[in-house]
């Protein structure tokens, strides 16, 4: 048995009526402020809106009329008889205690980190390995024709040089584990400069500038092994899927897709995607380093060409693959350390 003051809205007009409500655990009896009886409703048919901050509590009566009250305690007592919205009451409990809010914040950070570090890469890996080979070919060929249209020109290297490098490339490809087929393509590109990249289908492109920069075949071995590792590990497709995953996580965090495309979301998205790309580069370097140590006993030629690539791109600061790669100093150091570990 308890009483509380409330405002009654009948749902038919906007008139507000000050009332006193009396409840006995079964029925709500509503009287006017003058004491006149207005109505009585079974508590069973009433719907109490879940609590939210310190906002006014509302109770919907069976016919759609509504009671508003500031008396939080009285409604909390009423709710003891009401087993609806258990989830929302739990949520309100979370929201009402600073300790739990801090816990939620920590949980949020942990979850986002976990998704980005493990969840998304794992899902992207699964998705990438389920892409049929034929589709991979189509995607790669389309990307190649786009690149050809925009940045690439026919190679100007002499035919014998091409044949020589290709046979060296095929030798390395033959040493690679796995059943992927690799094919080397030559292109000239003043825009891109000295560079190499791999397409998911196993086609690997090198620019004339890169070939000219190499002082020996051994230097190219590291580059080829690096790109082949990208192909074997399906880094291209995984990257596409991972970036899609990041888009979804950012959308969930920012509430909707519209704000996920906004400027504020662009920075975290970029940072995460860069992190992924560096991770793949490290993996490819590791694979290349292992191959070089196994076959030639040293990563030195690869380190030397990396050093030269970095110096060159530093000078003309052309957009190059170097910028998304981990700092070259770091990469060279890693390769050196790898050698020490292996010996």
């Amino acid at each position: 048995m308890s009483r509380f003051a409330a405002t009654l809205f009948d749902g038919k007009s906007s008139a507000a009526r000050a009332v006193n409500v009396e409840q006995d655990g079964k029925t709500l009896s509503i009287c006017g402020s003058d004491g006149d009886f207005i109505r009585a409703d079974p508590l069973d048919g009433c719907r109490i809106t879940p609590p939210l901050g310190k906002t006014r509590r509302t109770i919907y009566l069976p016919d759609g009329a509504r009671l508003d009250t500031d008396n939080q305690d009285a409604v909390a007592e009423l709710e003891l008889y009401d087993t609806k919205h258990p989830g929302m009451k739990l949520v309100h409990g979370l929201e009402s205690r600073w300790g739990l809010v801090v816990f939620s914040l920590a949980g949020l950070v942990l979850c986002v980190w976990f998704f980005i570090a493990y969840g998304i890469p794992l899902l992207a890996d699964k998705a990438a390995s389920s892409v049929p080979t034929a589709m991979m070919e189509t995607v790669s060929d389309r990307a190649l024709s786009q690149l050809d249209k925009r940045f690439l020109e026919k190679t100007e290297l002499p035919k014998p040089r091409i044949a020589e490098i290709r046979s060296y490339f095929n030798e390395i490809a033959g040493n690679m584990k796995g059943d992927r087929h690799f094919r080397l393509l030559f292109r000239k590109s003043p825009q891109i400069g000295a560079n190499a990249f791999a397409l998911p289908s196993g086609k690997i492109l090198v620019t004339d500038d890169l070939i000219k920069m190499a002082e020996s075949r051994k230097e190219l071995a590291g580059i080829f092994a690096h790109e082949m590792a990208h192909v074997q590990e399906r880094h291209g497709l995984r990257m596409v899927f991972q970036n899609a995953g990041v888009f979804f996580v950012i959308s969930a965090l920012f509430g909707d897709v519209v704000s996920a495309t906004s400027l504020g979301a662009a920075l975290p998205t970029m940072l995460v995607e860069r992190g992924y790309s560096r991770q793949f580069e490290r993996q490819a370097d590791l694979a290349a380093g292992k191959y070089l140590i196994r076959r030639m006993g040293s990563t030195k030629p690869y380190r030397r060409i990396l050093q030269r690539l970095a110096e060159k791109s530093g000078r003309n600061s052309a957009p190059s693959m170097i910028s998304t790669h981990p700092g070259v100093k770091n990469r060279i150091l890693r390769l050196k350390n790898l050698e020490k570990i292996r010996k």
Partner: protein
Amino acid sequence: MENTVSGPDHQRSLQEVSTPGSKIYPLAFTGTGSEFFRIWIVNLFLTIITLGIYAAWAKVRTRRYFFANTFLAGQAFDYLADPKVILRGNLIIAGAIGIYLLLDIFTPAYSAVVILLFLLALPFLIYKSLRFNAHNSAYRNIRFRFMGTAGESYKVYALYALLVPLTLGLIIPYWVFRQKAYFFGRLSYGSTQSRFYGRPGYFYAIYLLAGLITVGLIIGVLIYTATTAMMADSSSSGKAWATAGFVIVTSMLLFALIIIVISLLKQFVYARLTNHCLDSTNLGTLRFEGSLKAWELMWIRFTNTLAIIFSAGLLIPWAKVRRARYIIEHIRAITPGSLEDFAAATEADQTAIGEAAVDFFDIEIGL
């Protein structure tokens, strides 16, 4: 619940409206940053651990928080949407985006088709969204309704959009006017329908003013670049470094200035048009007044942005509450009658609207 604004502008409008017997009800906002912070964090946490499913509940809780803390004449608004309906809409949208992303990777030719389909559906989605949100907004236990039709939405959001390039953009102010008219003129509170008598001329005046300032800014930048280029040419090699430094510093200042001016222009257009639309809307005997100020809105936007950046996003809820409070507390309702006399829509109307409002796609059109 006294109005917190003062100043010459406010006093002038007070005198204007003090027709005998008219009552002025300023809107009030009681939400706080720290309370909303807790709701917001829990929303994000639950959304992430449920892989996005809770987002629908989070949306309803957020909206309800802002509605339930908005008071007019001592009574609060309410947001009544069913989260399960929003979840269904979210799933459909997530599916569509997933399809789009896959198509974009593998067959980009078809992804363009998805975009086209989305654009074709957009006016319908806006219409559905307005209808859903109005139907689920209530005050004094009387629901709002949106009476606009899908056909009108296609006219406003598709036909006029197509006319923009044909008229070299000259139709944009009229287009915005029609969008506002579609919203403010087609609302209904219970059985009382709103009337909107905004003037396209006012929209043209505001956009013209904003346009003139932009043109002035562009001319200023051009003159500046031309003079600094000449200075760089004429300066001797010894002074080259000093000149370069000067150019860099002033360019950065100029860049900051442009950003501030553009932001101010956006707030100016928003403030003036919102005030005008509120002033031009009647709900029976009830009319409204907005007293938003561009400078104050810009100051809020600027300091909010700084606060969000330097708190790594943790002050987002505080910023949202702050801006909402400013806007809400600069709106007033005026009536010679009473707020107690509005009748609910007839039951048949209510049911029809309720059935039509079951689908929900949250399209923010920034009203």
